């Protein structure tokens, strides 16, 4: 087990981010600083989110699914969207194309999320002697999360940065973005409300991420067309 397993899990968790950066034109256009800025925005957003959680949420005695609390949590979760908005529109980026900008922001965002939320448990847990599938599944979850984040950033750039988009598509864009933003609440509901097993939740996330990526890609290329 031990270090080898930790290495495997870490590769599965963080590898896709690196691969994404290296394999796509992001690495050629020097979008690294954009990624870093997005990561910083993510960290600040998370801090604000934690402050909100601490202020508004009650600590529940039991681990059940409490609807009002979850709704509140979901609402606070929408701060992520605000953070993304800030990262996409307000932070000054070097002149890179919009296509690369949203990818870099999504990538930095997802990477910061993976490091903050998964690295420590991974180190503590996967290096332990006991074998569980938990950390491999978490690695897969991190992959799904990357896809979600990039998709959300793509839709965000459509919403906030692109002016001339087909009016018919606007509702679809907003609905898709809403689904993506609500994804943490949805998985939380599946896990706690419906008491799904972790593998089932992860497979749901993976298939949902593929579906949302496809939808986002269609929307994105549909908006691209009139510009061409």
């Amino acid at each position, binding site marked *: *087990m031990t270090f*080898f*397993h930790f*290495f*495997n899990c870490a*590769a*599965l968790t963080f*590898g*896709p981010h690196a*691969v*994404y950066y*290296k*394999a*796509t*034109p992001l690495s*050629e256009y020097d979008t*690294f600083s954009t990624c870093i800025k997005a990561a910083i925005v993510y960290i600040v957003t998370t801090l604000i989110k934690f402050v909100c959680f601490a202020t508004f949420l009650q600590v529940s005695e039991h681990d059940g699914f409490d609807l009002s609390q979850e709704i509140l949590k979901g609402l606070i979760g929408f701060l992520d969207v605000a953070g993304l908005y800030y990262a996409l529109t307000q932070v000054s980026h070097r002149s890179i194309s919009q296509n690369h900008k949203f990818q870099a922001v999504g990538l930095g965002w997802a990477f910061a999320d993976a490091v903050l939320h998964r*690295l*420590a448990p991974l*180190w*503590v*847990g996967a*290096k*332990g*002697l*006991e*074998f569980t599938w938990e950390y*491999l599944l978490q*690695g897969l979850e991190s992959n799904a999360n990357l896809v979600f984040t990039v998709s959300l950033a793509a839709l965000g750039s459509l919403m906030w940065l692109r002016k001339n988009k087909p009016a018919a598509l606007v509702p679809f864009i907003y609905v898709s973005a809403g689904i993506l933003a609500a994804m943490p609440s949805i998985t939380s509901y599946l896990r706690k409300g419906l008491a799904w097993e972790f593998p089932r939740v992860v497979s749901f996330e993976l298939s949902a991420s593929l579906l949302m990526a496809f939808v986002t890609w269609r929307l994105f290329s549909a908006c691209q067309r009139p510009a061409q």
Partner: protein
Amino acid sequence: MRGWWRQQVMGQAVVVMVVMVMSMVVADAAAVVDVYRMIQYDLRGAPMGSRRAALNHHATSGFDVAGADLSRAVVILPVLEVNISSLNEFVQNKGLLGGLLLLLPQRSHESGGGEGDDSDENVGKVLVELEQWLVHNTFQYPVYFAYEDDYVKSVLQEVSANDAAGRPATATTGGYKLVVSVSEAKKIATPTLTNIQGWLPGLRAEGDNSMLPTIAIVASYDTFGAAPALATGSDSNGSGVAMLLELARLFSRLYANPNTRGPYNLLFGLTSGGPYNYNGTQNWLRNFDQRLRESMEYALCLNSVGSSSDHMWLHVSKPPENAFIKQILSEFENVAEGLDLTVELKHKKINISNSRVAWEHEQFSRQRITAATLSQLEEASELLQQTGGIADSRRAVNETVMMRKIKLVAESLARRIYGQQGTQVEVFAAGTNLALSPAYVRSWLDLLGRTPRVAPFLGKNAPIITALHKELAQYTKDASLQHETLDSTFVFYDNTKAQLNVYQVASVTFDFIVALAVGSYLIILFVVLFITTKVKFLAVRNLLRGPIIPLTIDCFFNHTNPFCFS
């Protein structure tokens, strides 16, 4: 230039992060089981018992599992399935072993009553035999005891199934790993023996200046066993201690009233060091002052009086013709008749040249004090035998029979004290305020039956010693503690209790497969992303009919290729 600088910073950041994370303590186990380490001691300089404490090996279900490397395996053995002769052969041949985990049958939570059925008796016999064998052998590996519970059973089942299928647990195949992380055992520097004593002074007739005679009632309270943390000895000698406390309680009532205070001093002594030739008793007697020694009429030692047998032995070392001994015996016999008990005399001479002291009264006899031991054991035991080990459980003590025995001792003592030999007076009749209290005896039996009492591990201020002291102080005068140091022929090592972590570990092969899977996933991801983003869409569309791979490779090296997105 800028890129180089950034790489430097990144590298340093990674190093700092890794160092920070490395310093986090990792402590996580799937299951934790309480385990009790086998005793480790030196007997006259010879190493005995289990000589190691730390354990970290894969689990195996037996000694003859094909393909298992025993020197790197922990054998899990339920004690009821242990074959001592084959185990002995293994040990005598200096077989290498990673460790041994002995599973004791599930602890029963009944508080006894003693109606043990046949299976209980069998379990007891097996345990006694195994314990004796363990105590007298040396093991160069850790040996632990654990109680069988559902979890441990399921682990053992799975391990046996894997072993039977020819997949013993190793680093390459994975399986269960048993880890006890403790430091190696250290010598106990000065093991103390604590004797507890209390007085009930008798009433001197007016104008009588002579010293009152003293009767001592003595029981050794400590134990010894294969696992110090499990040596709770209910019969040997929890029963003797409970009897002594009940006697102290009864006579303290009589002595509280000047009208019923007898012309005898009563000395109650709870002695330590019983398993080690009554070492504590020896030291205790050595500290007796001359006057006390001379006033001592006799000492009655109580040893193993809890079993359901109604036949008792009065062990003496003076010849049975001795008038004093005869007298004591006839007192017992008289009372025993009415209680459906029998008492028989057994004489065993003391061999001064032999260091073995089999009965506690022999220590008194060596100091020329008349003494006898009341016990239901017929034969004198060997060193470290019948010392209240694992098998000596609370269930082995039968309270109803024991109450009759207490009555026997109490009545015969009372007859002697009040000069009523040969009469049929009943002092401690049921229903009076001098009646015996079964609840009191039971509560003490229960407490003693769950408290390990191996003297070197107790220390001076063990709760059980304090409790016994307080109890004696409540009924007697001048209750006091005496701390002695154990005879240096015995050296003990600590670490009697530990926690066993049970991990289910995956094999290295599995790790390799995962590594391959993750690696190929990342490579495929790279290629797919590369083709879909860096290769122009147009080019892909055109080349769907043409060779796509050469183009991809070309784009790697030649960015000027017009078909490549650059």
